[in-house]
């Protein structure tokens, strides 16, 4: 694994992404009136300084180790020494399952998305029997419908594809 100042390059990634976000935020912030931008821009600059300190603290240099000792007295463990590591493909799949469900709700509404997702998730991920997935899918939909539509009188979102339903 490639290293930079003694630390794997991948460990700098989150701080680097936050740095880019802070820069975009500052650029946008300077487009507003002085009064409107005063506080956000101050926070944006503070974020940049903190991210730079975070990046420095991640390095295995004298400055990095001093920062770690000062601000992380409980001795911050490095990522490559931490607990269980999961396969990246598994992580991406899990995030996609959650994001896909949200997308399905937006497109098809709750009464379509919930049974489809519960069924698919249990069948494909949970490897449960077909009848079990069907029953739980139907029960989950019935619970959501009874709780929100009937009990709380909240009309569930019908979905972009079925706006008239």
């Amino acid at each position, binding site marked *: 694994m490639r290293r930079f100042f003694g630390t794997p390059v991948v460990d700098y990634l989150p701080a680097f992404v936050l740095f880019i976000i802070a820069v975009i935020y500052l650029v946008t912030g300077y487009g507003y009136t002085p009064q409107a931008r005063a506080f956000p821009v101050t926070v944006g600059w503070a974020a940049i300084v903190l991210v730079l300190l975070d990046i420095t603290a991640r390095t295995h240099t004298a400055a990095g180790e001093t920062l770690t000792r000062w601000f992380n007295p409980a001795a*911050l463990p490095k990522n490559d020494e931490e607990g269980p590591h999961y396969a990246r493909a598994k992580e991406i799949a899990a995030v996609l399952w*959650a994001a896909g469900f949200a997308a399905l*709700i937006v497109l098809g509404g709750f009464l379509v998305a919930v049974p489809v997702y519960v069924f698919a998730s249990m069948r494909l991920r949970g490897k449960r029997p077909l009848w079990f997935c069907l029953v739980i899918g139907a029960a989950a939909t019935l619970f*959501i419908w009874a709780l929100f539509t009937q009990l709380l009188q909240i009309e569930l979102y019908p979905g972009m594809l079925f706006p008239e339903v």
Partner: protein
Amino acid sequence: MFAAGEEHRQKGICLMLEMWLGGLQGLLHLDVLGFVFLGMVIGLVFGAIPGLGGTTAIALLMPLTYGLEPFTALALAGGVMGAVPMGGSITSILLNTPGTAPNAATCLDGHPLAQQGKAGLAIGAAGSANAIGAIIGTVSVLAVLPIASDLVLMFGPPEFFLMGLFALAIVATATRGKMLRGLVVGALGLMIAFVGFNDVAGGERFTYGIEYLWDGIHLVPALIGLFAVAEMIHLMVKGGSVAQSGSPVKITKMTAGLLEVFKHMPTVIRGSLIGTIVGAIPGLGGTVVAFLSYSVTAQASKNPESFGKGNIQGVIAPEAAICAHDCSALIPTLTFGIPAGAEMAVFMGLLIIHGMQPGPLMLRDHQVEIYGLIWALTASCVLASFVGLLFVKPLAKITQLDSGILVPLVLSTAFAGSFAIDMAIENVIVTAVFGCLGYLMMRYDYPRLMIVVALVLGANTERNFHQSMLMGEGGWSIFLNRPISVGLMIAIAAVLCLPIFRGVFNQLRVRKLAAERSGP
């Protein structure tokens, strides 16, 4: 003249006691008690369902109270508000899914305890901490209410601004071993909090043309994402069940949990006092109170490294503070008409539809109703702590469900709850985005609690900053001319320097030990 003053004071005390008892007497009717119980059950259920909570419950119940007497309506509302924290703590501990925003602090140690098969212990401790917190909160409120106006008036925008910074600083130091990352995440949270319409300068900021963002990032959908969805993504990756041990759920420890609180009385008292004092400050709210109590307890502990890994004090401290806060949040709401949070804002609507205008006059004209409400809230907190325990056994089995079954069910409820807050489909997208963000924060070891506190405090802190600047005619001297401000600034500096002092102290101690060992 002195004797006349003493006589006046004694008369005042007698009148106050009369009102306390009047409120209690009003509550001790079967029909009123029935409504308190009904409110308690509703509060437990709404508290346990992520995204609903007390605000939604009171908003939904409001039209149904039209036909009730004002006293009964307030008793019902008190029943709801008192039980919501207990409902929320059950799901926080079992599923790492805070039923309400303040319960997010309970997740930090409650869920690790559930993972160790000690769900019963955590829930029992949460229950009794709730009950004791409510009692301490009530006693404090009953004592403070008559002089509350003077106390709250001592705080102006500069003090509120510095209180916001103080809360951020103290929570950052509590993320031990990760203070720098905590501050980075706090800055990110503040940046997110500034999204939306800016009521100081007018116009919108950082919305990038998205109309939904004019109202800012809604807190509850973001919290559901950060905790419920992130945890479910983690469970999908990890596989298995929430309880890592796989051993049967040890509900037998619930009594031990109830008693555990008595072993940690300083934690309960400290949490309750934080809840009472900070809860009375408008704009800070239950979430800040819970995290502040958690952070202070972690700081004060002899074993701070155990926090976040299943330390029972990490459950007791926020739970005691939440219930005490619920009582003291009534102070600014009733005395000034300034809601201490969203729940209190909705509750003010309920007061108004029953002909009670919150403000100084309410303390004079509706004392019996006010004290009745306080008693109802306390009774509900105490009752819910024990009634809630009856539901724990079936609920605790949830921690043993396989992720293949649990994940789709929790995600369905979480997304539906998020949508139900204000029936905006964008809430679902916010929940999903914050879910992914929350998972990445877990994965890369960034503390999630800082982003919550920053989201809660961001808008108010900015508003108070601008108001302070206006008061000081653009100069910073406004912060130096007020004793409470100066005290708060010293406190912020001390909190931020604490890790450095601790580091130096530890180094000196290590050197001293080494010298002793190598000595003659």
